């Protein structure tokens, strides 16, 4: 009896590993094809400048999407991230501008702003998490609500206009976006660091396994003595933290925040997660895939700017098609691989 279970387990494990491999390859293949298309359209696509731009641009959505991977894996969803980023950026700018008189325009002011951003991100994430778990409201509704709240808050802070960072502080803060280390801009390094931490957390810790378990079946996870509410709240806090990291590298780019900052970032982050192979229902998450998903999304926009073959009005169509094809590629259930196993 025990023997049989063990061998059965081995079989499922084997098949899962096979399909997992395919799921890893899907988005990577899609990205490769996209890059090839980009190169054929215009060889300048693979110039160092363009690749650097691409990676730096992916960092915002990518970092947020790493957080979203945890939320979605644990069976939740967070629609508030774009608005949250805008609101945090707005508060950061107001506070840093306000600190000019007391702290000057140096590193200390910038560090205070960044510290505040992290606190706000954690706080906003905790609110989403607590309302979902303790408040027993569906995550979709909670975060739809907070999305509206944060968006209107930034409009209010900016008096309907644009909040701009003090010119001197911008000088101090600017290198965080525009400078780099070993040829890679700092935002890309932050992206890499967040991705590695995320991967370790999801794949190598008990916390990561709990997320997956809760996403697969919350009731069973609860009976297995997993502290479901705490773990779920943690995923939203991680999401908030990721949003604050993204905001910290976003603000020095143009030094401003307005009601149009971060619009639709939530959908891009969710799309990146799903393209990467994470299941929207929860229970299965892949950080590596999420990174590829974010890169794919940015590359599509980049390629569309590199050609005038496609009417500007059809940009959305191309993006939609490529997203669907990318997901088709990695949902391998209909391929021969699975059938052979059965």
């Amino acid at each position, binding site marked *: 009896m025990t023997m049989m279970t063990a061998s059965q387990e081995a079989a499922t494990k084997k098949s899962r590993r096979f399909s997992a491999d395919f799921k890893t390859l899907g988005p990577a293949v899609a990205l490769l094809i996209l890059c090839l298309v980009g190169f054929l359209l*215009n060889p*300048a*696509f693979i*110039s160092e*400048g*363009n690749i650097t*731009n691409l990676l730096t*641009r992916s960092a915002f959505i990518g970092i947020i999407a790493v957080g979203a991977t945890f939320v979605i894996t644990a069976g939740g969803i967070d629609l508030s991230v774009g608005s949250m980023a805008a609101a945090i950026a707005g508060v950061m700018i107001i506070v840093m501008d306000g600190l000019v008189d007391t702290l000057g325009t140096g590193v200390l002011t910038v560090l205070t702003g960044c510290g505040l951003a992290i606190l706000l991100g954690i706080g906003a994430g905790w609110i989403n998490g607590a309302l979902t778990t303790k408040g027993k409201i569906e995550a979709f509704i909670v975060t739809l609500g907070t999305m509206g709240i944060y968006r209107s808050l930034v*409009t209010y802070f*900016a*008096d*309907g*206009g*644009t909040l*701009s960072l003090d010119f001197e502080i911008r000088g101090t803060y600017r290198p965080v976006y*525009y400078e780099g280390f070993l040829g890679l801009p700092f935002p890309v390094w932050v992206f890499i660091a967040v991705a590695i931490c995320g991967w370790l957390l999801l794949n190598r810790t008990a916390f990561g396994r709990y997320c997956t378990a809760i996403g697969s079946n919350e009731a069973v996870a609860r009976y297995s003595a997993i502290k479901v509410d705490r773990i779920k709240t943690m995923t939203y806090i991680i999401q908030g933290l990721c949003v604050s990291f993204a905001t910290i590298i976003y603000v020095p*780019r*143009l030094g*401003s925040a*307005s*009601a*149009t*900052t971060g619009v639709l970032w939530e959908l891009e982050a969710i799309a990146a997660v799903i393209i990467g192979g994470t299941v929207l229902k929860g229970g299965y998450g892949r950080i590596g895939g999420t990174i590829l998903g974010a890169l794919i999304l940015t590359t599509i*926009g*980049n390629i569309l*700017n*590199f050609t*005038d073959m496609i009417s*500007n*009005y059809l*940009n959305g169509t191309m993006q939609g098609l490529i997203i669907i094809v990318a997901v088709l590629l990695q949902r391998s259930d209909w391929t021969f691989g699975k059938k052979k196993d059965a």
Partner: protein
Amino acid sequence: MLMRRALQAVAVTGLLAFAGTAVAQEKIKIGVSYPTPTHAWASGMNWHAEQAEKRLEALYPDVDLILVNSPDPGAQASALEDLVSVHAIDALVVLPFESEPLTDPVLNVKKSGAWITVVDRGLSQPGIEDLYVAGNNPELGKVSATYMKGRLKEGDNIVILRGIPTVIDNERFDAFMAEIEGSGINVLDDKHANWNRDDGFEVMQDFLSRFPDIDAVWAQDDDIAIGVVAALKQAGRDGDGMFVVGGAGMKEIIKGVMDGDELMPVDVLYPPAMIATAMDATVNALKSNGPVAGRYILGATLVTKENAENYYFPDSPF
């Protein structure tokens, strides 16, 4: 909702009946209705409307301007009803949220006998308004192209960043292209940057990677232009006589023009202050012995170092 409004109207009428004789009776009431500011241009408009209100009420003690902003077309329609039923306005200045859904509500105000001034966005039925005040989108494109022709020579290359795909954007773009045609200036490509700084930055980055030789940029809008300038500086291609032409009249850009910024030497006006023009003209319609009714289309003024001071409002949010 209706019930409450009816009650409100009854209450107000009641109050008026009591207080009516005491209050200075013949006050001219002008309602000013526009969308709630959610972006920089609109909040500039809000600011200019408030300035005009203060100025006009100080000038004419018997004029009362009532400013109302609404977050969506439905709310604006209700606001118009209230202006008639509660305030019994003599004239209305309205910047419609959308043409179609607000045509009937404005027509109802007209039926109450009020003077109608429509600003910027026309109604879908002609002949309702007494006065139409608007900026000039085709002119904005044309003026920008004329300036480019003056600065560039045959064989020079430009790129264009457009706004959100809309009629406004098409009017600007088509007029620009018509004016630039035959000048020998190459338009390398045009892409939508959605009147947004971030999109302006990213689209310009891609243009810079794609085209090694760009001599000038038409950004059409000051928000886009700010993103474009950041991308040019990042790539170190902001020298060599490169210049960017924006549009609208954002205070930071006007300030730059005043200070002789070489990268953005001019700006083309599409001013949010047009609401003040409309309010002035409406008061004139009720006060002046000169006729006012008709169409008042503002020019798309080219702001240069010489005249920039006239268009600089440091206290406005835009």
